[in-house]
């Protein structure tokens, strides 16, 4: 029996290790490849030893900065993503609060509409949205990459379901203590909803950081384009150097990792309390 258990757990761990390798290998290959001279990247790609850097060289990183306006792409991505996150937290949390706590006519119908909006992908509305922003004269600006993504049905729903579970007495106590609706929200409700704020912040940031289709449609100038368009352009820039592309990739992933590590504690709480998969 004990022997059988041992074999079973060995098998389980074996499968887990294999899965971990499959998931980690591309990332590891990217990080290691970014630190190798370009010639060796393809040469060692087929072997396991290729996953070890042997020597560390930073030339690929220097190349990225020399060949494309990386800082410009990075700034654009950060500016756009952070703007959407900050404005989105404010707008969506207030909307979620209004749905969960305030009494108004048509609330339930509108909530149903918002929830049903969650299933509509951007691709489905990209073309009409494109016409709309063209009419507004917003093309090729930061605005066009920020404003359409501030209000988000999924974020509203996350906030809504979290606020529903928050004890009503807290808000009533605040009202009796002399806080009006705004101060009740900002002093009492929001600080107690940190986990869901963190979840929404991370999910929004990740989505926007990787945003490709929409910026491609509405921008033409490098000065307002974000990192995903930058890396796509970099692919097509001769000569094709995989080491440089990997270096670009590493630098693109780093801010995301940083955000995740910073908010990880709250994010886990948020996912646990909202029952949403990360």
């Amino acid at each position, binding site marked *: 029996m004990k022997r059988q258990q041992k074999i079973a757990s060995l098998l389980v761990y074996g499968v887990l290790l294999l899965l971990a390798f499959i998931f980690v290998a591309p990332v590891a290959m990217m990080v290691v490849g970014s630190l190798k001279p370009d010639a060796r990247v393809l040469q060692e790609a087929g072997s396991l030893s290729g996953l070890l850097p042997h020597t560390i060289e930073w030339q690929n990183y220097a190349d990225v900065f020399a060949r494309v306006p990386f800082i410009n792409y990075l700034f654009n991505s950060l500016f756009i993503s952070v703007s959407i996150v900050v404005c989105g937290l404010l707008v969506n949390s207030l909307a979620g609060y209004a749905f969960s706590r305030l009494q108004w006519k048509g609330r339930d119908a509108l909530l149903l509409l918002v929830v049903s909006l969650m299933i509509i992908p951007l691709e489905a509305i990209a073309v009409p949205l494109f016409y709309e922003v063209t009419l507004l004269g917003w093309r090729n600006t930061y605005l066009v990459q920020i404003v359409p993504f501030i209000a988000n049905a999924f974020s509203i729903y996350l906030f809504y379901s979290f606020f529903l579970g928050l004890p009503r007495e807290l808000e009533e106590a605040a009202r009796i203590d002399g*806080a009006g609706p705004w101060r009740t929200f900002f002093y009492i409700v929001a600080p*107690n909803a940190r986990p869901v704020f963190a979840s929404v912040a991370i999910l929004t940031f990740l989505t926007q950081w990787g945003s490709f289709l929409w910026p491609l449609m509405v921008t033409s100038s490098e000065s307002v384009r974000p990192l995903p368009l930058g890396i796509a352009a970099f692919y097509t820039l001769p000569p094709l150097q995989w080491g440089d592309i990997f270096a670009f990739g590493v630098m693109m992933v780093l801010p995301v990792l940083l955000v995740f590590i910073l908010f990880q504690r709250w994010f886990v709480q948020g996912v646990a309390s909202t029952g949403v998969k990360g």
Partner: protein
Amino acid sequence: MAQVEFRQVSKRFANGVMALDHLSLEIAAGELIVLVGPSGCGKSTALRLLAGLEPVTEGEIRIGGQRVNEATPQQRNVAMVFQNYALYPHLSVQQNLAFPLRMAHLDDALVRDKVAEIAELLDLTALLQRKPVQLSGGQRQRVAMGRALVRDPSVFLLDEPLSNLDATLRAQIRGEIGAIQKRLRKTTLYVTHDQVEAMTLGDRVAVMYAGQLQQLGSPEMLYLQPENIFVARFIGSPGMNIITAALRQEADGMILRVAGQSISMSAETGLCDAWQQCSQQTAFLGIRPEAISLDKNERVVALRARIRSVEYLGHESLVHFYPGDNSASDTVWVARITGRVDCSKDETRDVYVKPEAMYLFDKNEQFIYTVHAE
């Protein structure tokens, strides 16, 4: 301190439930009134209407002589202690206590002084830096009291403040609340479902049932002169025993027919007169458990009883029995007897009641007569 008045106040919720039905109640300045009743009786609704957390459907609420129906909670200057305390979890005890003062834009130094003063009063000084999660139930309760008292409200509202505490702590904090109220003499409305709290704390007690005020009076008055069967059953622990009865004029005087027995009541002229005045055949007889004895004393009425069970509580025993000879009866009475009782299940014996401990209620369950009421 301010006087509080409910004038014919009703509350109907959106789903049609009438939670409060024409409540009229006056609380004198500095008085502590306890609203007591079973869950769903409208007592918490009354408190929430007074606090301004719910709008009034009909009627008028006045604080200090001013109509406050349209006023926000902060304009009413009321403070409230919630059943689950509703302490702000992200703020320390100090910040919790300071919150109402900060919302009133008081000066920092003044806030510090007031918080220190209230912390001293409630013995919270050592806990000021802790978060609510690091406090025991009793400490949380004191912080909630402190937060309510710190800004010197004109009316103090408590919504079942002890229901989350264990029995020992409940008795202790009950005493503390009583002492603080007597010291500060704040107009207080205290809501509870526990009649022991109501009886020990209230200057006056308002018994509520089904959204209506059943009786308002001193604890002693509620116990001795209940106006109806609901109050008689609700006040007292255990509540009053009630059974249908009939009183008739027969050849040998007034006879009380109860549980298949005939008891001569000729000596009780007051009772007989009261009964004749209300000219009814059937009614309800009520006897408090503590008025029933297993020993024959002077001037006692004997009632046949079949013992159902005996609960021994140490200083006393609760004897549950079926009154009368009718073994099919599902009416169970309780007698509260000092010390240990020696009787066994299904034993049939006499129990004794002093006539002056008997209460009569008419068929509408309203009080008719007791010797105490004279």
